[in-house]
């Protein structure tokens, strides 16, 4: 006769228990009260003793698996004497075949543990959760967070807590659940209704990567937007002079405003290294970069890419102009190397001719700031108490306020503004040539 032992509520209201370790093998003789299995609930890890004597039938859950309270944990082939007794706390199987194909004999040789393989699908961790719990200490989390973790199927012992005293917050659980789902941090998939004529474009490749990066940045960084107005009247005049000279050397050759802006920004980054940085969350460190590698957000037919001007602070405005043109061409024609499209330490986003008035750019995560460059337009300005027409441009900067204070962001932009409003210095500065 088969006795089915169902996991009891061993701790005042537990709903499931994890099989930490089996202490008996299938086919083993079993004494009354002999320890059978180590079970961990959210309250305690305990040994479950045999409620009946006999022989171990089937172990219904593998180590590492969760057995719900009330489900059959193990079957016991009762000795004849036990079969005659009534049962409480467990129930003899009405159909002995349910408990296994070996009913009634009691002489079946010890079966290998792998006979529970069909149930062992979820696999076992190399370090048992109990051992992990002992190594890491108790988990701190509120009941609401614990409930959320259960709902999302998140094991709290594997979650890094960002709250006080490493307390696990609900956000930590959600992040963990998101990060653990396959390759990206995609939110739960949403289905939408279609109408005839709607066009479906596969969401993959570059578009998918852009989406993931943007979402990660918006989710992780505390975006703080700051906007400043720059008087570019002198810059416009200087650029016109420069272009006249360039055209003399090589007809058709021109320089845009961007190299000046890159130069001013790269110089300012040397003064404000806290913006030329990245946040290493895993290590818990803010990494200030030695080099200034300027990413330039660039629109292509396929989508947004970011070619990188390496060591932008060491190049003159003229050299920057050439390098930017070269990179832009390589990027648009799809010939840019992987190296040229990665490794930025700070990013500038410019919409070129369109430019706009204001934007709230999304930081190129894990960098900590991004500068948005807008249209230079003739607008009225007040100078010496009189309204005059000037060439004005707005700069929008988004900083990760977790790392960069608003005051530093403002001072940084003020430094760029100062350089652009007196652009002769930018143009004349002869940066050391790269080796």
């Amino acid at each position, binding site marked *: 006769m088969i006795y089915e*032992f169902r996991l009891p509520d061993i701790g005042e209201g537990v709903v499931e228990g994890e099989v930490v370790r089996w202490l008996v093998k299938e086919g083993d003789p079993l004494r009354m009260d002999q320890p059978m299995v180590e079970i961990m609930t959210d309250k305690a890890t305990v040994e479950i003793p045999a409620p009946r004597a006999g022989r171990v039938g089937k172990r219904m859950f593998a180590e590492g698996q969760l057995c719900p309270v009330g489900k059959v944990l193990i079957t016991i082939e009762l000795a004849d004497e036990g079969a005659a007794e009534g049962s409480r706390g467990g129930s003899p199987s009405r159909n002995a075949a349910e408990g296994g194909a070996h009913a009634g004999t009691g002489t079946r040789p010890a079966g290998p543990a792998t006979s529970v393989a069909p149930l062992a699908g979820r696999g076992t961790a190399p370090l048992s959760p109990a051992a992990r719990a002992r190594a890491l200490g108790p988990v701190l989390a509120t009941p609401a967070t614990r409930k959320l973790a259960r709902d999302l199927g998140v094991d709290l012992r594997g979650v890094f807590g960002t709250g006080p005293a490493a307390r696990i917050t609900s956000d930590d659980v959600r992040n963990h659940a998101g990060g653990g789902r396959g390759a990206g941090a995609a939110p739960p998939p949403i289905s939408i209704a279609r109408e005839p004529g709607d066009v479906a474009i596969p969401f993959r490749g570059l578009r998918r990567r852009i989406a993931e990066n943007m979402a990660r940045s918006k989710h992780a960084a505390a975006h703080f937007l700051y906007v400043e107005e720059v008087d570019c009247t002198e810059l416009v005049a200087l650029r016109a002079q420069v272009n006249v000279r360039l055209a003399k050397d090589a007809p058709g050759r021109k320089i845009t405003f961007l190299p000046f802006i890159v130069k001013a920004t790269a110089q300012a980054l040397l003064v404000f290294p806290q913006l030329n940085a990245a946040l290493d969350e895993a290590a818990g460190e803010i990494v200030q970069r030695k080099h200034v590698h300027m990413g330039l957000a660039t629109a292509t037919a396929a989508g947004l890419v970011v070619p990188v001007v390496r060591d932008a602070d060491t190049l003159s405005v003229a050299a920057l102009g050439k390098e930017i043109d070269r990179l832009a061409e390589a990027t648009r024609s799809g010939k840019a190397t992987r190296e040229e499209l990665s490794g930025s330490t700070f990013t500038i986003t410019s919409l070129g001719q369109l430019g706009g008035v204001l934007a709230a750019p999304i930081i190129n995560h894990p960098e900590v700031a991004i500068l948005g460059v807008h249209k230079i337009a003739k607008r009225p300005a007040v100078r010496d108490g009189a309204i005059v027409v000037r060439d004005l441009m707005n700069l929008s900067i988004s900083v990760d306020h977790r790392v960069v204070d608003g005051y530093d962001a403002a001072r940084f932009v003020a430094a760029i503004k100062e350089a652009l409003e007196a652009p002769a210095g930018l143009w004349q500065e002869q940066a050391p040539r790269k080796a």
Partner: protein
Amino acid sequence: MALAKIRAGMGDVDSESVEVWSDEDEARATGLLQLLGPDGRLVGAPPKLEPALLRELHRGMLRARVLDEKMLLLQRQGRIAFYAEARGQEAAVIGAIAALESNDYVVPAHRELGAALYRGLPIANVVAQLYGNAHDVARGRQMPVHLATPRALRFIPPSSCVATQLPHAAGLAWAAKMRRDPVVVLAYLGEGATSAEDFHAGVNFAAVYRAPCVFLCENNQWAISTPASRQTASRTFAIKALAYGMPGVRVDGNDVLAVHATVREAAARARVGGGPTLIEAVTYRLGAHSSSDDPHRYRSEADEASWKGKDPLERFSIWLAATGTLDAAGAAAQRAAVEAEIAAAVEAEEGIGPPPLRSLIENVFAQPPAALEEQLADLERVRASAPASHDADR
């Protein structure tokens, strides 16, 4: 004149201050009285106890120990819902109750099932209560281990609320004093209870009114997960007694002879109007707080191992064997008898089944009101139509 009479009627309040805080008193409250060392060798004066009483002490401790072992297994097997062990504290539990007269009152904390058995409660009553079956006096209404006992036993049902038993004990003792009934009240408490407000209420009241009360604080080092070191800034728990104006005695709680002697002395003083005593029995909870607790989450196995070496039952067995009071064969026979007794009780009570459904509406109103009768009828109808769901819950 009138006032004096009223005061006398309230039980002779002694307003003169009690002189207790001598160096010797302080030494008793901060030292550690021990008669039997951890190795089972006598370190104090030999006790003047009858061999029969010594064997009875051993049997009492053994019954508590085996009951714990067996009931915890039943809980893990899902046969009872909950259990709380006293393993490691048997000397404090049994040594104290054995020092009382049979008509003295006992106000237990949470781990004194062994004391109830020592008083004469049949093991079957305990098992019935753990199963919450039809034999249970409270008919399954109380959490397991919180058992009601026959009134004649003078053993108050335990409450889960920490320290609430102490004002009860002081009140019982004060009432006895007013009735000029020469009984003593033994109140068990844990060291955690000394941090609860009712400790002050009960202990202070007993001291002011010189109530015949013995407070036995089982300092088992752990209030669930709070260590004794976090429980008080006082030097010891016993020294708190001196501030209340009563003697405090610190004793090895794993030494049944020392506990017995100390409680006997305190009870004798209380019985003749000497007022209460606070005894700190230094012991250790070898098991978990309850079947729902896992002590390895908050204390080390090394800590437990060091206390296993001071096991109260083992040291007493060694001494009993050495003095020829109870040899190994006698102890083995005692154990076999206790195991059989418990096995028989489990076998008898496990099949009894739950109290009748009707008991749900009984024992509160002399005559259950019509509304309750109606609800019961509804319940019976539902149950009759879906018997399977009830079985599935088992």
